[in-house]
């Protein structure tokens, strides 16, 4: 189990012993996680490992059953999404959480409109276009309702929204799942740019290629528990072993079978 190169300074976000229970189900048990300024932490794990629950806990959507969360060295209670946003924790949720009846500009600025008593539509539209161009987004019009956009376009809007408030930590839950080749590359570029600006990034992805491309550390969750922290250059086998909980797993068995078949045919 390799540890990462030393990262200096206090972590921006520190979780200690965080647990979350839904009735009889323990979705998270005793999770420890540090996120430093200027690093990309990838959160990987199988379906049901608790990745999305952890992200939602940090976004203030769920409240942890036990454990403590420290933000910039101070203990905080994330009792609502508004609190998390105000602290500077922005999230791109897996279900995107956009309002389909509102247009792109309204969704980007939702809850943080400029000039609350006389909305500054012009300024907001300009900000929206600049932000979307930074992401190389192909959005035909920012005045169309979200309902008329494709899955990838919606995902870009959701990512753009998380950047709007200049957060300290950005959490991306499967940000590239619905994206094309170019946009995926743009999102990975973006993650690196965000890191260069000194922000912390939490990336959830099933795509190991994406993970290894940008992550500084890979944190593996398994059945709601920490199951190791790895370097970005850890081999695929090692990561899969940690994710599935055994070096002998369905992925390795499949590969072994394929190798055997190739041997036999040759």
């Amino acid at each position, binding site marked *: 189990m390799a540890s990462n190169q030393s990262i200096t300074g206090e972590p921006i976000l520190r979780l200690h012993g965080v647990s979350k229970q839904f009735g009889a189900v323990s979705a998270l048990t005793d999770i420890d996680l540090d996120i430093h300024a200027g690093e990309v932490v990838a959160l990987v794990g199988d379906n049901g490992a608790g990745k999305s629950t952890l992200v939602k806990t940090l*976004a203030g*959507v769920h409240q942890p059953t036990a454990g403590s969360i420290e933000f910039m060295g101070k203990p905080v209670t994330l009792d*609502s*999404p*508004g609190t998390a*946003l*105000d602290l500077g924790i922005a*999230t791109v*949720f897996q279900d*995107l*959480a*956009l*309002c*389909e*009846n*509102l247009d792109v500009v*309204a969704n980007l600025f*939702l*809850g*943080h*409109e400029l000039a*609350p*008593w*006389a*909305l500054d*539509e*012009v*300024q907001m*539209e*300009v900000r929206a*276009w600049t932000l979307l161009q930074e992401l190389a987004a*192909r*959005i*035909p*019009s*920012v*005045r*169309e*309702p*979200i*309902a*008329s956009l494709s899955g990838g376009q919606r995902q870009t809007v959701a990512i753009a*929204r998380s950047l709007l408030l200049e957060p300290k930590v950005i959490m991306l839950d499967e940000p590239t799942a619905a994206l094309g080749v170019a946009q995926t590359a743009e999102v990975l570029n973006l993650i690196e740019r965000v890191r260069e600006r000194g922000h912390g990034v939490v990336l959830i992805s099933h795509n190991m290629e994406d993970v290894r491309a940008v992550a500084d550390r890979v944190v593996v969750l398994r059945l709601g528990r920490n199951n190791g922290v790895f370097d970005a250059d850890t081999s695929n086998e090692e990561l899969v072993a940690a994710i599935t909980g055994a070096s002998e797993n369905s992925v390795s068995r499949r590969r072994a079978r394929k190798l055997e078949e190739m041997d036999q045919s040759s």
Partner: protein
Amino acid sequence: MTEEKSSTALDRSDSRVRHDEGIIGAVRAFMDRIRSGDLGMLPVAVGLVLIATVFTSLNPVFLAPNNLVNLLFDAAAVGCISLGVVCVLLLGQIDLSIGSMSGLASALMGVLWVKMGLPVPLAILAALTAGAVTGLVYASFLNRFGMPSFVSTLAGLLALLGMQLYLLGSTGSINLNYNSALVRFGQILIMPAWLSYLLAILPGVVSVTMGLRAMRRRAEANLSNPGLSVLLAKAGLLTVALLIAVSYLNTGRGVPYMFGLFVLLVVIMNYALTRTKWGRSMFAVGGNSEAARRAGINVNRIRLSAFMLCSTLAALGGVLSAARLASSSQQAGTGDVNLNAIAAAVIGGTSLFGGRGSAWSALLGVLVIQAISNGLTLLNLSSSLRYMITGAVLAIAVIVDSLARQSRASHGRA
């Protein structure tokens, strides 16, 4: 239409999008919207023309100026109630107790003013406060216990009606003083002609000034503009239509102040819904309340504001109808008031499914509803027939709403 710029405008860089510019473009965009199920004011316009033709052919008095003035007097009370309904419908909620609330408000005002001798403004204030408190109770039920507004307001319908009957006691009705300012406001007071013409010109002037300001700011920010001709054409059409309407009404008694009050409330509500953060939050909560919550919006507070506004406006409607009838009676707010107010909002284009609508729908819808009820009264039809016809109109309005919603979904619009 727009001047050539050295670089393309910020919002015009995508070549796949057709950009509608100028008057022809505006017409084409309008047709596209209609076809995709974004009907806007079209059902209202069609409905009004249909109603006017049918009723005028049956009884020519229908289009007489003074009958239309009466229609406007009647429209103000239901219109206020309907304006409140728009707020809760936008959230995808409903308030079924608005009729009872208006009845209770009229009874409360009558008792406090006539029986207990309080000054009128205080009595009205008490009635409005009762409305605000009722809305607060509904919102708390929804926020605390997750009680659907359909159920809590159905319970409220009975409870408020009970309170109204209790307040009025055995006599059953209280007559208001005919010479009081309130009753005169509800029955007689008409704007002087010059004021009504001035108010008819105002919307056009305001929309041109605001439009020019917006165009200048958009040009400075390198954003495209729909074009000056569209702006001028819209403002011109609006002004001409309003001037014709006002001059026709002025050949009769003129424009009632009470209707003016209602329109003022609609304008304020429209501003609040479209140009403030609160309004944006209302649409967001109605569209996807979980997404709104995750964007940091306090959903409970938005619901609270909507229900309080709805009940308060219903109470105001009750006060206005008491002024119109010069009495607070056990019949106030019963019968078809409830459904008329909800139907008006839906006919005007506010969706029952939440997240879509505007303050104008209360104004437009109430004109349709009042025109029907006024026309049926002129024909001396019994209330049995009137209820059936109004019920059918509501059903049609909801069907149009549902069909338009399906069409929007298949055309990729929310």
